[in-house]
């Protein structure tokens, strides 16, 4: 443990930016808002880089205790920060990708009337996300956890004049509450049994415990509850439903919060709690199964979506599933590796999609795009790199991390691998479908301008007509940087370099994978997954470029199944029937009409009515008639005297 007095500055800098822009932004010039919005996260990134330079893989964790927070008997919680290899990776991803997306937003949001508000929220998000990452105990982490939820809510509902955006924000917030409930109960259990929330203390108390192989016990319960929290934040089955709706927010928000950083918080939390999970095999299995199912499930939905951002949203859910699959088979470093590369290429994909949407005047329906590669070549080139990266084509970033996960999954259970490989094929297919639909063929957008008005609030209304046009440099530079990272970001995984870097955190519990990992089996599996990726590319090419009439035929022949997938398996409808409607009805009938109106309102009203009736009677005494007052005084005096005589006072 090394004290590092600069650690607290990293989260605080974006907070300062948010405060300045939040309080003064309305009256400041746009240049001033831009400067502050970029300077503070930029400084945080620079500081993070500087700290990272002094932090080698063997370094002991940096700690900094900012203040005491809770002191209650033996239980205490501090505002303290903690930086080890795991948080360092997260820190660099969040500040780096976050800063790039801030730069991009300057271009993307330039026409928005609430420019300063956007950057206030974005900086606020950075503050909470960095708090989450740098926390040294679960409670400070929980502050960040809830804070990013708040920032996410504010930014999804950024265009709150649109009803759909406002309700998408609410949906995200409420679904996350369900997950947070599980997380909180997990934390209570930790407090009760380990008497602390400090990571180091809790884990040192957990470490001597036996793994709960025979049956579910305390650690399994805690693990599953933490996983419930992670499911909410990281959009896993059954709580993934909010993420696709969250695409109502501005595209940079989708890139930053709903692809690169916030949604990975669940993965980070599970990886951070790996000591608990490693001793709870049942909880790990639950994590793996949820991750695997989510990966496959979301990928299939992604095939049928036509909204460019919705495809990417389901793709994000699916990729997060991969990360949980990795955590579930105990390959935490592989999960974090994929988290990092995913932040690069998915951030890039979203920003590229934003650039495409910008180019075609706010249109998001891919069926109305096409042929864009000649209009916006830079966006096309970067999107191509990102698509190849997510599809897992070597030697791009996604290939290395996905391959690592699939190999680890194969070692644990070939079924995970099989589903993962199929998902890789589907991923490759729907991503190239997106690419072909958007950039190949002929541009179909010019004759469609009846949608322009629907997106007027996006600030792109004035671009609704005419040729698609390339985005300004301020948007393209972040695309290029992320494209570079998507190209080479995976190379840190060669020879398990990334895994070795994280070894001080995750330990060498899985030495078999480290030492003899690169045998023939792995090469074979690698070959198979590359083949799957190429197959996806090929099928997408056939269906959407060479024979574009085929997809409709296939869809028609699949009939009801296609309908179900197109409608996202009716999950939203099922949830509405199963949970939302009973809750709304129950709240209306029992809580509102029953408790609120019958009990609370009626009690208050009856008390008031009673007071009114009594007063109505009594007020007649106050007639304003002097002689009646005198009469009352005389009568009262007579009564008092009579009573005193009766008692015999003075006798």
């Amino acid at each position, binding site marked *: 443990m090394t004290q590092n007095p600069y650690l607290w500055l990293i989260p605080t800098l974006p907070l300062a930016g948010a405060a300045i822009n939040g309080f003064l932004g309305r009256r400041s010039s746009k240049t001033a808002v831009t400067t502050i919005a970029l300077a503070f996260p930029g400084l945080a990134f620079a500081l993070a880089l500087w700290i990272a330079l002094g932090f080698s893989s063997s370094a002991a964790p940096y700690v900094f205790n900012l203040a005491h927070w809770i002191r209650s008997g033996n239980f205490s919680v501090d505002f303290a920060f903690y930086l080890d290899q795991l948080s360092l990776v997260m820190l660099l991803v969040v500040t780096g990708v976050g800063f790039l997306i801030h730069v991009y937003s300057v271009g993307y949001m330039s026409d928005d009337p609430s420019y300063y508000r956007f950057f206030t929220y974005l900086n606020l998000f950075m503050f909470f996300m960095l708090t989450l990452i740098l926390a040294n105990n679960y409670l400070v982490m929980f502050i960040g956890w809830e804070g990013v939820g708040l920032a996410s809510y504010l930014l999804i509902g950024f265009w709150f004049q649109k009803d759909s955006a406002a309700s998408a924000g609410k949906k995200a917030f409420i679904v996350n509450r369900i997950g947070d409930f599980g997380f909180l109960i997990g934390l209570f259990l930790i407090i009760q049994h380990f008497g602390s929330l400090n990571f180091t203390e809790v884990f040192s108390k957990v470490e001597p415990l036996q793994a709960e192989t025979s049956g579910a016990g305390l650690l399994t319960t805690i693990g599953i509850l933490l996983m419930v929290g992670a499911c909410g934040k990281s959009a896993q089955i059954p709580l993934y439903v909010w993420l696709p709706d969250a695409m109502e927010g501005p595209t940079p928000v989708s890139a930053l919060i709903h692809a690169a950083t916030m949604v990975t918080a669940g993965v980070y939390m599970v990886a951070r709690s790996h000591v608990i999970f490693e001793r709870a095999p049942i909880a790990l299995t639950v994590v793996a199964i949820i991750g695997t199912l989510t990966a496959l499930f979301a990928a299939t939905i992604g095939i049928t979506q036509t909204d460019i951002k919705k495809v990417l949203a389901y793709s994000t859910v699916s990729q997060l599933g991969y990360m949980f699959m990795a955590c579930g088979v105990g390959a935490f470093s592989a999960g974090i590796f994929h988290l990092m590369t995913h932040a690069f290429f998915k951030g890039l994909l979203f920003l590229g999609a934003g650039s495409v949407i910008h180019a075609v005047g706010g249109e998001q329906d891919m069926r109305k795009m096409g042929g864009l590669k000649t209009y916006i070549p830079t966006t096309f080139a970067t999107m191509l790199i990102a698509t190849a990266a997510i599809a897992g084509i070597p030697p791009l970033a996604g290939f290395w991390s996905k391959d690592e996960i699939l190999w680890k999954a194969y070692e644990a259970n070939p079924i995970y691998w099989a589903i993962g490989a199929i998902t890789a094929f589907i991923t490759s297919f729907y991503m190239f479908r997106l690419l072909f639909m958007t950039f190949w063929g002929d541009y179909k957008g010019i004759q469609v301008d009846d949608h322009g008005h629907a997106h007027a609030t996006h600030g792109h209304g004035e671009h609704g007509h005419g040729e698609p046009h390339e985005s300004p440099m301020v948007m393209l530079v972040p695309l290029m940087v992320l494209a570079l990272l998507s190209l080479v970001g995976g190379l840190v995984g060669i020879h398990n370099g990334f895994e070795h870097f994280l070894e001080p955190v995750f330990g060498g519990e899985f030495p078999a994978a480290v030492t003899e990992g690169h045998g023939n089996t792995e090469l074979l599996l690698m070959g198979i997954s590359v083949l799957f990726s190429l197959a996806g590319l090929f099928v997408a090419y056939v269906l959407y470029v060479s024979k574009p009439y085929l997809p409709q035929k296939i869809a028609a022949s699949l009939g009801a199944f296609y309908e179900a997938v197109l409608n996202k398996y009716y999950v939203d409808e099922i949830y509405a029937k199963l949970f939302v409607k009973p809750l709304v009805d129950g709240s209306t009938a029992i809580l509102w009409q029953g408790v609120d109106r019958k009990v609370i309102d009626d009690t208050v009203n009856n008390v008031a009515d009673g007071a009114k009736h009594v007063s109505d009677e009594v007020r007649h005494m106050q*007639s304003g008639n002097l002689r009646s007052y*005198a*009469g009352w005084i005389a009568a009262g005096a007579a009564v008092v005297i009579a009573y005193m005589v009766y008692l015999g006072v003075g006798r």
Partner: protein
Amino acid sequence: MVPLSYYLVLSGILFACGVTGFLIKRNIITIFMSIELMLNGVNLSFVAFAAHWHVLAGQVFVFFVMVVAAAEAAVGLAIIIAVYRTRETLNVDQVNLLKL
């Protein structure tokens, strides 16, 4: 010597006259005079007791009552004039603006 009870009976009669006048009369001036009558009824009983028990406190108290009565007469008459100027009546039944 006149026995104490005579004074007290007279005092009681004076006080009762005052109360009755206060209750049944409508003219403020008359009510005002009824108050003076009650005060003097009480004064009489004070001096009667003081003489009977040979205690000077009762006598002194009467002076206080007289002073207060004089002050009250001054203030009261001023109020009566003010009331008459605004309401143009001295009938208390018509001075009932405080009624709800």
